[in-house]
């Protein structure tokens, strides 16, 4: 029988709030726990704060180790903290968010423990031997690979934000043990911490709403822009509206404009010329609404809808506002 007991989750936070991805992983860990019956532990590293303390205390898990670390966020130190906890408990699984910070030290831990790490998993489940089956896309998403870390522990997996559902249970109660890390004498000097510049470009967006020729008046774009913002994304355009001068070229999707690869793209009144589709065909989820059943875009959409954007969009906005 195995001796490892425990599912570790890295609790990432930087600005007074635990990252959503870490909470998604707590939820996932609790789900896995129902099958393997191993306790869930959290490891948090960062600056001391009352808000974080209360969030940590209310997690529905066994225990949290909280390493108070002022100053720079350094992969080496984060690794050290996590390894210290792992050596205490010998967990069978370690989950981290596939964020710049999480990805920055996940495989350091793997090397320290001489074990395997699988990055950007989209599915995590147990096989018949209670090994964690880590599934991830490869080759740009053209193939899915299911991977096992058979003989070594912990089994380390990183997961991108938004893959797993959010934690809904905010009524937990857990023990939080504060710790500190030994200072390294050659630590680099933290010069500053800066806000990130607002990017704004459509190529950086994960969610895009696209307006096409089916939009009758320039003023109607405001409705679509509202929808885009409610979904957490931005408004983009096919060439037709840029030509009309209703949208700027910055927002143009197509072979002679921007090539985008968002998680979600929803087109309204876009017919789908070859040039347009070349600019967005690799989007993860393509939803297309067009009143014309022969519009080419309907044959590449994952959810093609023959309908009038003028009846659907207002209703969609209503539904989103209710959420």
């Amino acid at each position, binding site marked *: 029988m195995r001796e490892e007991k425990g599912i570790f989750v890295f609790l990432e936070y*930087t*600005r007074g709030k635990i990252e959503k991805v870490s909470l998604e992983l707590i939820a996932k860990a609790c789900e896995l726990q129902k099958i393997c019956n191993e306790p869930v532990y959290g490891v948090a590293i960062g600056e001391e704060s009352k808000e974080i303390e209360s969030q940590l205390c209310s997690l529905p898990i066994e225990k949290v180790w909280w390493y108070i670390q002022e100053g*720079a*966020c*350094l*992969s080496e130190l984060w690794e050290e903290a996590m390894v210290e906890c792992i050596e205490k408990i010998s967990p069978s699984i370690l989950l981290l968010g596939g964020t*710049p*910070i999480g*990805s*920055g*030290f*996940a*495989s*350091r831990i*793997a*090397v*320290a423990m*001489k*074990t*395997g*790490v*699988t*990055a950007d998993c989209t599915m995590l489940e147990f*096989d018949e031997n209670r090994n964690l*089956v*880590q599934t991830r896309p*490869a*080759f*740009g*998403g*053209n*193939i899915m*690979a*299911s*991977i096992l*870390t058979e*003989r070594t522990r912990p089994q380390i997996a*990183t997961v991108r934000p938004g893959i797993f559902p959010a934690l809904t249970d905010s009524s937990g109660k857990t023990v939080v043990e504060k710790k500190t890390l030994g200072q390294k004498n050659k630590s*680099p000097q*933290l010069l*500053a*911490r*800066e806000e990130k510049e607002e990017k704004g470009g459509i190529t950086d967006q994960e969610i895009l709403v696209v307006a096409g020729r089916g939009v009758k008046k320039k003023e109607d774009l405001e409705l679509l822009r509202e929808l885009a913002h409610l979904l957490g994304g931005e408004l983009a355009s096919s060439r037709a509206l840029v030509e009309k001068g209703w949208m700027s070229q910055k927002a143009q999707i197509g072979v002679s404009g921007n090539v985008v690869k968002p998680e979600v793209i929803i087109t309204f009144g876009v017919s789908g010329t070859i040039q347009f589709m070349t600019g967005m065909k690799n989007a993860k989820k393509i*939803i297309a609404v067009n009143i014309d*059943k022969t519009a080419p875009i309907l044959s*590449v*959409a*994952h*959810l*093609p*809808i*023959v*309908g*009038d954007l003028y*009846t*659907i969009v207002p*209703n*969609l906005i*209503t*539904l989103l506002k209710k959420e």
Partner: protein
Amino acid sequence: MIKIAVCMKQVPAYSEGDMDEKTGLMKRSGLETITNPYDLSALEAALRIKEEANATVDVFSMGPENAEAMIKDAYAYGVDKGYLLTDSRFGGADVLVTSYTLMQGILAVNKYDLIICGKQTTDGDTSQVSPALAKWLGLPNYQGVIKLLEISNDGMEIHQDLGEFIQVLKINYPCLISVNREGFVPRMPSFKGRLESKNKSVNEMSIDNLEDGDVNHYGIKGSTTKVKKIFPPKRTQAVEAQVLEGMDGAMEILSFLRKD
């Protein structure tokens, strides 16, 4: 003199993989290859340091023999020496072992001040090799680097994009940095550089050139993760369009968005 090592990988030009169903390993033959675009940014960062301060830039790669072409191409950009870790026994390596192999190769050649890696590859898509490599080498790693300033023989100032904020650090060598594409748009290879380097050869290294000669530590033998199975993703065939209006359409869209 700053001694820089850049890790580069040759990848298929298109992301269309041909996987061997039994072993789960990529069948690499027959596909056109390019240099991993993210590694060109790593190379660009190295070359900028070389231009600003006094530095040498060596390239290391692990791959099949014809990955030599990629290193030769790198010479045209201004790389000093190129090393290709190539051996059939390296095949099938996972993150742990790939980083171990690169570490062995790097240590067999020199003690470098700075190792520079790209953010990820277009085939494996993981960004996990560089932190692991740093750990094997006993070095700190700094990921998400978007800017390099104040380059000196002891260290430099880096700006890291850590997701929610930018962290500005003064770091010292030796260390490993991983750069993002933004901030390091690759230069064009120079015509002069290409002609001058046409007779330059690539140094090939096999397990026999490494300090650890135990074949069980490399390739698929040394890997701790194994591909259990591969399958095509839930790819949609041309889906039948539904005729929907108003609230029906809206609800259909919302539920589609909310499912995994």
